[in-house]
């Protein structure tokens, strides 16, 4: 009777094919499940070997329904043992549990599950603390980088639309810009460009630059309303929201790319991500608070800020805004109008004057009577302060 060197293992012998890993020939063998390892006996030439269970590696993880087992051992590099039949694989599972699919998966996934939990917990903690890594990076960006980045965004978002350059309109816009920019108290120059674009919109881009559309000017009832919208966009600029949004989007895309093993196309779609940036509601509130501060400093009534959005909302409810444009409309990224209106109404009254004279307001409304193709924007060094 064949004896097990380990003492009292499984007495059943299983048919196997043994390959030494030196040549592709295979030899008949028998294998027994010993107490501490597999006992392999090769018939011709007669060779006996014991592979400890702990040193076994399996061609594919062992399962209850496995039809056979293909094994290697670190004790005999290159050699392999093929044992056909389900009973051997099932019996081996109890002696070498590290070869089961469940054990292998857990061994591989456990550190990454731990890392995932740590990432999610860190994210939650950062969110709860109110600290924004993207904002911290945005604050450190040189001004020249911010302005160039902004020009890139303007170029990509206004493609196909002409720039409005009527001289009298430009004078009026410069006057309004000077008044508001001085009131920000930041000493930073703001650049405002109007495009002949029927969409009702205004948006801030990196580098303290603001794009406003002819559609918005057409919908505005007064210069105070335009001043309110511009002060709001300047608020975004002061808070570095556009820069923060881009850095956050890029960081998220890179993280997704890294996590999805490069098959998500995330980096390739960065352009889309940039174009689809939307301000968060918290950022909108911050911009509103900055706008109210700027308007007070500039002695312009805050009513225009609330009124404009209120009227836009009521027009939208009536269906005046074409359906296809809604998703790109200024309202899509802004907080509820009621909330903004309440914020405006809570302001202490102060002495104010009209944002622009009636003549200047009329000139601003007509800024798109003269348009030019949107040439590449001049570099920041070439731009006069508060140029349009």
């Amino acid at each position, binding site marked *: 009777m064949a004896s097990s060197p380990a003492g009292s293992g499984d007495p059943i012998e299983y*048919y196997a094919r043994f390959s030494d890993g030196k040549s*592709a020939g*295979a030899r008949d063998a028998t294998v027994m499940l010993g107490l501490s390892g597999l006992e392999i006996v090769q018939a011709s030439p007669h060779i006996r070997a014991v592979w400890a269970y702990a040193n076994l590696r399996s*061609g*594919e993880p062992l399962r209850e329904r496995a039809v056979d087992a293909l094994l*290697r051992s670190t004790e005999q590099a290159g050699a*392999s043992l*093929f044992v056909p039949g389900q009973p051997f694989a099932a019996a081996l599972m109890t002696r070498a549990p590290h070869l089961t699919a469940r054990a292998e998966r857990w061994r591989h996934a456990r550190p990454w599950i731990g890392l995932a939990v740590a990432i999610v917990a860190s994210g939650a903690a950062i969110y709860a603390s109110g600290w924004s890594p993207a904002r911290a990076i945005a604050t450190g960006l040189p001004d020249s980088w911010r302005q160039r980045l902004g020009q890139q965004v303007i170029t990509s978002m206004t493609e196909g639309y002409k720039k409005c350059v009527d001289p009298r309109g430009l004078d009026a816009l410069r006057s309004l810009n000077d008044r508001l920019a001085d009131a920000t108290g930041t000493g930073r120059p703001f650049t405002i460009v109007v495009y002949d674009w029927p969409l009702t919109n205004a948006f801030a881009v990196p580098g303290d630059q603001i794009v406003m559309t002819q559609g918005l000017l057409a919908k505005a009832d007064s210069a105070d309303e335009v001043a309110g919208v511009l002060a709001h966009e300047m608020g975004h600029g002061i808070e570095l929201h556009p820069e923060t949004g881009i850095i956050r989007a890029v960081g998220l895309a890179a993280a*997704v790319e890294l996590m999805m093993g*490069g098959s998500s196309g995330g980096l390739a779609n960065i352009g889309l991500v940039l174009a689809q940036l939307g301000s968060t509601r918290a950022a909108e509130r911050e911009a509103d608070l900055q706008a109210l501060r700027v308007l007070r400093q500039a002695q312009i009534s805050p009513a225009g800020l609330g009124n404009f959005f209120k009227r836009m909302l009521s027009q939208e409810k009536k269906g005046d805004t074409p359906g296809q444009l809604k998703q790109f409309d200024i309202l899509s990224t802004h907080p509820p109008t009621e909330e903004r209106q309440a914020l405006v109404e809570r302001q202490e009254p102060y002495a104010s004057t009209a944002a622009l004279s009636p003549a200047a307001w009329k000139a601003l409304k007509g800024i798109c009577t003269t348009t030019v193709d949107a040439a590449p924007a001049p570099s920041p060094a070439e731009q006069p302060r508060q140029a349009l």
Partner: protein
Amino acid sequence: MLRPCLTRAQNANAPGTARRTSGYVRPKHDERAERLLGPTMSIDHAERTISGIERSDSTIKITFDPGTDRLIGLGFTNGLLQVLTLGIYSAWAKTEVRRKLWSFTRLNGEPLEYTGTGRELFIGFLIVFALVLMPTFAGGAAISILLPGRADAVTAYQFAVYTLFLFLVGNAFYRAQRYRLSRTQWRGIRGALVGSAGQYGWTYFWTLAGPAIFITAAALLAAWSIGPDVGGTILLVGFIAALWILPWRANKLQRMMTDATRFGDRRVTYTGTSGPLYARYLYAWAGSAVVILAAIAVSVQMIAASGAFQVWMQTKQLPPLEDGAKLAAVWLSVLVLCAMITASYRASQIRHFARNTHFEGASFRSSVAGPRLAWLILSNWLLRIGAIATAIAAGSLLIYITGAIPKPGTTDAARIGTATLDVLLILVPIVVMSAVATAFAQFRSTRYLVSNLSLDGVVDIDAIMQNQDAAPKRGEGLAQVFDIDGF
């Protein structure tokens, strides 16, 4: 095929108590073995089934033996683990799928073994991420910042990047194949791909870029010296004609890859020429051309009849959904028809490659058929689309059931919490179902290709010795990034 184990009493090796049949030892009378094999399976039955493991080592029989496994359960588990690890587990998931597919593939009844690891794939990807993806992205960002509004600079950069990627794609194919062959073993003997990935990448590149540069230069010259119409015509006709290089190119690349392939210390050789491929290519090329031209004619007629598209061109007012759907249906049909025509050519190409691939004294043979291959490709796509659609429907149902819809008037934190739950309820089913569909689709493709492959002729298997070349240390990160790693 059933492959029961054979058991015997411990004293079966004793002289006179055992007889040798088909290479394994069986006792004359073994109650224990009979008990283990069960009442429905006799030892004799086991003998017959086990004889599927060929004893004669002069021929190699290729089979695909998955038992009842279809990788659906594995796909499900992999999907869940990818969610729990934020996607990082995908390298290990891919490895486990490969180990299964390799083990289902049998030579003389013994499985191939995949010895690659998830760790190797993951590190390979990280290196490519750091050395290729990030610098490419950083270069684009730098141009945006340093040269704002310069569309020409962006275009030049994109051209340079695409050119580099075109070179890297060939490189990636080769490296991926080298990695997989080095991690493929049979009876402990591993495969290998010798030769230069750079040389293959260069051939892959110039056989596409060369004709493109030549045609573009000719078109520019004609446009400058004769007129833009002539230049445009040369460009269009030139590129359509250049498609005829593809069979020659495929054959050349196949030769490079196959002649560099080793199993153990033995070479695999390729003797094919591109000539026989051209007759089939003519059908595919002409068939596709007819389908596309017909679709263009139908589309032009539809656009002219509708009038809505002219409005769209002038006012950007989108045409009615019905008109758009009709047009989309026409081009979807084109896609399906062209896929079927292309599959027919692909099948003939696979058969051509197989019959011209030789190992020792034997030649491969493939019986892959065009219609079956077309159906396989199409049904795998439908499978993936159906899985994602099912996941979205299931996720939406879960959102409806849980009532996790952001409500106005609630706090920001509550809204963010609800929105996060919504994303998870949609995303988790999508990731899981995609993993299931992908694993099952890979199973079906491998089953079809392997089941239709054979090796005809005599091979002295015992004489094949181990390959002594050093195997690559890392996984095929580049192919993974370009999404061309197949499995």
